């Protein structure tokens, strides 16, 4: 276990914290918007720390770059997704009550 390995491990442990936080938020927060808030933290910070840790473990720069690209894509995608879902939820809620509702 070199120093880099330990750093990578710490980074990934930090990622785990954010993943856990996202799940707890997803399950415990009261409505769509707060849940969106929770999961986007997982998407950017959680995945970010994970990618940072994995990049340190990567065997080549090419792999590290690829990991970075995946993270950036995920950042972009999840931010847009959160915006779209939030707008959608708000629009659906205005006329009456929310959309579907089956348990």
């Amino acid at each position: 276990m070199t120093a880099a390995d330990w750093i990578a491990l710490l980074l990934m442990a930090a990622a785990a914290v954010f993943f856990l936080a996202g799940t707890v938020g997803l399950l415990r927060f009261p409505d769509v918007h707060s849940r969106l808030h929770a999961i986007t933290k997982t998407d950017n910070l959680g995945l970010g720390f994970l990618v940072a840790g994995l990049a340190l473990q990567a065997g080549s720069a090419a792999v590290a770059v690829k990991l970075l690209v995946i993270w950036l894509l995920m950042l972009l995608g999840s931010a847009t997704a959160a915006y779209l879902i939030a707008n959608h939820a708000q629009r659906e809620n205005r006329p009456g009550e929310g959309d579907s509702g089956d348990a």
Partner: protein
Amino acid sequence: MPDLLPDLLLAPAVVWVAWHALTGRDLFRSVVFFIAFGLLLSIVWVRLAAPDVALAEAAIGTGLTGALLLDAVGQTERGARERGRERRGVAWPTALAVLLLAAGLVMAYAPLRETSGGLAREVAAHLEPSGVSNPVTAVLLNFRAYDTLLEVAVLLLGVLGLLVLHGRRDLSRVPAAERADPVLSWLVRLVLPVMLVAGAHLLLVGSHAPGGAFQSAVVMGGGAILLLLAGGRSITAVRGRLLAAALLLGLSAFLVAAAVPLFTGERFLQLRGETAGRVILAVEAALAISLAVALAALFAGARPRAGSAGEDR
């Protein structure tokens, strides 16, 4: 034993998610569960050391089929969802019969596993002259290329059927999406090139790593779907001839590659030696383009025609 822990968690999770996808009255919920099921199944494939299948499952099962199903279920009106197909409870006799059949199959095949190693050895032996080093691609595009050829033809027939149902020979009557959303437009502008590059990457890497024409086509088709949904009128203006040309490109390239060996003294679709690798790549490239257009057409064609859903323009 600790090695099996993830599997012990995965297996019941897969069953549980599949159960919820199949039962329950809310179709939308079932569709989302289906998407989750696809992702879990992808992980299962990885645990079974089949990254190629995992890639296909993620792209096709989760991504493309998920998008198609979401689109379909989203078009059912809110009230109609209840009025519609009355989903009865679980059909217990059928479920029992299926379970017994599955158990019977497992018991019949289990003893075979020890005696035969499948065809892995034969494939590995003939990998060198096949032109590619990824055994999956070798099987798909060389050893069993005939099957792939017919699969592509079947897919095209499906798209053809859809276009016929759609009423026109092009997709010009597909309504452009509603008023453009600035954030979405920006996303598409940034992500579409990435998807095209990813598609090209998957295509090129398919000769020695998980990838290939189908996966590449699905990713690029997804990009086309994004373009369609983000208010891009360009896709909806694809005219009949261009659409037909794009759709037929793959199959024609495949047929040409298959027929050429006939003139050089070999059999139909026999690919061997030096040129095999290059031919496979060329055919895959054509297939990727065709299939991407086909998948986008499948998606676009499934939407209501302009004017029939109250959405003109």
